[in-house]
């Protein structure tokens, strides 16, 4: 792929990647760095990036995985400024308004992506399944497990 085509794709999809990274990392500088990395990763599948029908869910998945990984690393380094995510949809089994890193980090990366997709992004289960390339049933099952364990963990922490 030549540099003009790369520049064109970056102009097209960069804003969505940047917004996604900004939402998950909550820091413009970190989002800027992450945007570069995510776009580079996305460039390894140029076919998906070139097709408008597949590009958005694809970059959403790549950006989410990358940024959640950045958050995990930041959490390990004790960078607490990256930890809080606003909850868009108050779930009956998760009444908190913030999804904090110490809860999120107790789960595997796929479960984290599901929890963020449903609670933070307000996505329906089917939408999350579509983005992550998994079944709706898997989304429901993993989310139920996340909610149950998160509730128990928060109750233990409060006690």
């Amino acid at each position, binding site marked *: *792929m030549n*540099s*003009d085509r*790369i*520049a064109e794709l*970056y*102009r097209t999809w*960069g*804003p*969505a990647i*940047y*917004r*996604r990274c*900004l*939402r998950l990392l909550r820091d*413009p500088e970190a989002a*800027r760095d992450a*945007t*570069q990395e995510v*776009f*580079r990763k996305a*460039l390894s599948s140029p076919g998906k990036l070139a097709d*408008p029908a597949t590009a*958005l*869910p694809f970059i*959403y998945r790549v950006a989410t995985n990358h940024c959640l990984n950045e958050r995990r690393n930041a959490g390990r380094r004790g960078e607490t400024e990256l930890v809080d995510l606003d909850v*868009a949809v108050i779930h009956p089994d998760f009444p908190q308004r913030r999804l904090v890193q110490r809860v999120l980090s107790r789960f595997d990366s796929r479960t984290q992506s599901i929890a963020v*997709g449903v609670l933070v*992004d*307000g*996505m*329906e289960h089917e*939408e999350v399944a579509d*983005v992550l390339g998994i079944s709706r049933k898997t989304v429901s099952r993993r989310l139920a497990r996340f909610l149950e364990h998160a509730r128990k963990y928060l109750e233990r922490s409060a006690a």
Partner: protein
Amino acid sequence: MNHPSELKLERHLLDPGRSPIAGHVAGCDRCRDRLLEMEKQAEDFRRFVYPATLEDVSRRRWTPWRTLWLLAPAAGLAAVLLIVRTGRTSDYTGSKGGGLTLTAYVALPSGAKTVADGEIVPASASLRFRVRTSQPCTLALFSVDAAGQVSRLYAQEVRGDVALPGGIRLDGNAGPERFFAVCDRGYDAVERAVREIGPSVRQKNALPDVQGPQASLLIEKKP
């Protein structure tokens, strides 16, 4: 009330005319506010992130350029370091500070070369920058074109002779563009001063009311 997810809002932004959530958005203040915020973030990307990161994004897949940039320091040593602005100019009202020099390199098919003030460069060329300061400096590097379009390219602490990381790609539009390097922590005030340069970009080579040292470089972009 159920609101569209972030992903649905992203799809809406791509094609509002055919968006299945257009009806909801029209009657939902919260979603309209979020869309406005998303558009502002896109503008931030276009102004600040895209020009400062495109070179890096492209570089790994563009070996000849990478090789070219490896040669840039050598080219810089061989060339006379361009001290773009020294001393007081007629419209310079800031206080004197330590010296600051700004050098730009343009990547051409013939090799990396230093850019002289007012030089014509290809409108889509890639540039890299080097600054030299006599004192530790909180550097901000901005660019502004004749339409008053401002891009913040770098903001970082520098000391001594420093090649700024990455590079930028020019926007492809014809016309003058001036780069301002400033040692000043007041980024927002500096940005406002840069914006006001606008149509006078060819004439004004210094920012008023900037406390620290500054340097500028004019280029003429030609498609």
